[in-house]
């Protein structure tokens, strides 16, 4: 007789474990990498996280992930035009990087499959704590991606656009980027595709001293896809990171953000837009560690919820004991446009230092009727007027980016969403 019964595996868990057995011989990696994969699949064998795991409380992955598609080697994903014209595009099509990716001056680009084979990124494969289902899933299956190394002092004039495009099946991609001291770059992480895929994608960014990076995640998966993503960053001394996340698609989406300030004077800005329609479930979960003194951060998330969509923002800020003079502010504002939609916000501040300024706020509103009347009184019909006001609510966050080309590129993505969901 069993002392404790293991809960029965869900079809999704079974499919993942079976797929691992089938894929093993095809997965790149030296001995150390393969050991990490084994550890990772063991974690999955213990079961996907449920609402009883605190960090997954609002996104019960075990219940929500009910279909895991088979790998589809025949799937053909097509590269798309970058959101900013003239960007250097590094495409990952259906989980595979391009052997002939363009050369970028001052930047070393390597296919991730090579780094897995030679084992040089093995350390980055460790999951983030024991509840890291996305990290484990990715470590188990990751086959490719790019390793991008921007040399010290290089200031890129044009963005680098990392495209992760799927056409169904499963894709597991990793995108580690190192930005050298004093370097400046805009990096676009484009997540899209056409199939009912299961995508896991892990981006890892390390910013050297005084580096400045704007990283834009533009997620536009179809409403059939499951998108499980992580963005991890270490921000060095006097370095600045602006992370912009736009979720405008997907059926089940979880975007995790783990950021740590590792040098004094580090600054982090998170700006996020979640555009939720249909019966999408979208979760943005951030854990920010202010680990050293004199670092700053602001986080602003704006959500638009229509249909039966559900959204989640969990924002956790840890201020470590020695991280005096930390200044952190977080806000999450939601425009709820339907009675059936919902949005859950969970801000958490854990502060062990005594000389800090930290705050958070959350609001949920509807469209302002006075504003609507004003626009209509000028002849704008109700639908367009509502569209203008909803767009205005999120565009405020985009306009803060104050680089005209980027603002225009993102507003074009926004218009695209309103065209299909407005």
């Amino acid at each position, binding site marked *: 007789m069993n002392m404790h019964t293991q809960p029965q595996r869900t079809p999704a868990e079974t499919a993942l474990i079976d797929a691992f057995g089938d894929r093993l011989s095809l997965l790149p990696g030296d001995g150390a990498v393969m050991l990490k994969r084994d550890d990772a699949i063991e974690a999955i064998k213990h079961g996907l996280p449920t609402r009883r795991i605190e960090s997954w409380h609002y996104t019960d992955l075990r219940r929500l992930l009910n279909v895991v598609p088979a790998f589809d080697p025949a799937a053909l994903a097509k590269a798309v035009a970058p959101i900013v014209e003239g960007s250097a595009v590094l495409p990952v099509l259906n989980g595979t990087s391009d052997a002939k990716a363009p050369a970028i001056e001052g930047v070393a680009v390597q296919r991730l499959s090579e780094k897995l084979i030679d084992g040089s990124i093995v350390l980055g494969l460790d999951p983030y704590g024991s509840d890291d289902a996305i990290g484990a899933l990715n470590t188990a299956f990751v086959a490719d991606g790019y390793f991008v190394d921007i040399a010290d002092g290089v200031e890129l004039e044009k963005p680098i656009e990392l495209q992760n495009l799927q056409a169904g099946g499963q894709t597991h991609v990793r995108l580690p980027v190192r930005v050298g001291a004093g370097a400046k770059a805009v990096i676009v992480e484009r997540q899209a595709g056409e199939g009912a895929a299961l995508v896991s994608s892990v981006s890892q960014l390390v910013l050297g001293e005084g580096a400045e990076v704007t990283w834009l995640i533009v997620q536009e998966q179809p409403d059939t896809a499951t998108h499980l993503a992580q963005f991890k960053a270490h921000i060095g001394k006097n370095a600045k990171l602006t992370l912009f996340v736009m979720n405008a698609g997907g059926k089940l989406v979880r975007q995790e953000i783990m950021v740590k300030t590792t040098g004094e004077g580090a600054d982090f800005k998170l700006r996020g837009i979640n555009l939720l329609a249909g019966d999408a479930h979208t979760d943005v979960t951030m854990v920010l560690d202010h680990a050293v003194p004199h670092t700053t951060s602001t986080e602003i998330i704006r959500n638009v919820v229509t249909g039966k969509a559900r959204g989640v923002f969990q924002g956790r800020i840890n201020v470590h004991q020695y991280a005096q003079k930390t200044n952190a502010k977080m806000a999450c504002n939601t425009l709820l446009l339907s009675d059936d939609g919902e949005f859950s916000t969970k801000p958490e501040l854990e502060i062990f230092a005594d000389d800090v300024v930290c705050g958070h706020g959350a609001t949920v509103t509807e469209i302002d*009727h*006075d*504003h609507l*009347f*004003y*626009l*209509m*009184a*000028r*002849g*704008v*019909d*109700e639908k*367009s*007027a509502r569209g*203008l*006001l909803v*767009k*205005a*609510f*999120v*565009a*405020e966050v985009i*306009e803060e980016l104050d680089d005209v080309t980027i603002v225009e590129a993102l507003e074009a993505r926004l218009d695209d969403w309103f065209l299909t969901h407005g």
Partner: protein
Amino acid sequence: MLEIKNLHARIVDDGTEIIRGLNLTVKAGEVAAIMGPNGSGKSTLSYILAGREDYEVTEGDILYNGQSILEMDPAERATSGIFLAFQYPMEIPGVATMEFLKVAMNEQRKARGEEPLKIPEFLKRVKEAAASLSMDMAMLKRPLNVGFSGGEKKRAEILQMKLLEPKLCVLDETDSGLDIDALKIVSDGVNALRAPDRAFLVITHYQRLLEHIVPDSVHVLYKGQVIKSGDKSLALDLEANGYAGVIGEAA
């Protein structure tokens, strides 16, 4: 052009009746001034004309060019040529003023079956209208009315009126919050729009505005009714003697 017949209207939320049997006729080309003490229903009348949902018409009718507008929503009224210059224009963060002007102008053109304006033509019109109102184009790069002073907001209202070329212009206390120079600029803007096929309903507290925008008729509103009508001399009389006399006569 405008015929208001025995209009009764109340606030939807609490049922308070504000307009109680109001009759008013304004002909094409006419500038009609509506005066009256606080709480007489002046602003309510302007909102009802524009179609604000907070008010409900319980009796009577509003005919515009012979057609009832009661079933029309605010956008339909606007595209048919009715314009309300707000007493307190709303600040709308995130909506760029220029973008808004372009959308509004083109929506109205679309409703009239005209092609949308090409960008250079649009910019030309906005620049000309802004210059005539001594408005800085930099202001129009800001979100709609956000951070505008009271006077700037009023100018922006008149700018919109110029660009949208309405047929029935309702000006709700356009003079409030204006200094004397701004009052002159705004009044000149309104006067420039006077035309045989355009009517104005100028709602004001004070005679001051009517020195600049000379009305053809003056109507005194009290407790939701027009209690006296006359020509511009009525406004002067009110300025000199206050509303008490007129109210006494009516009572």
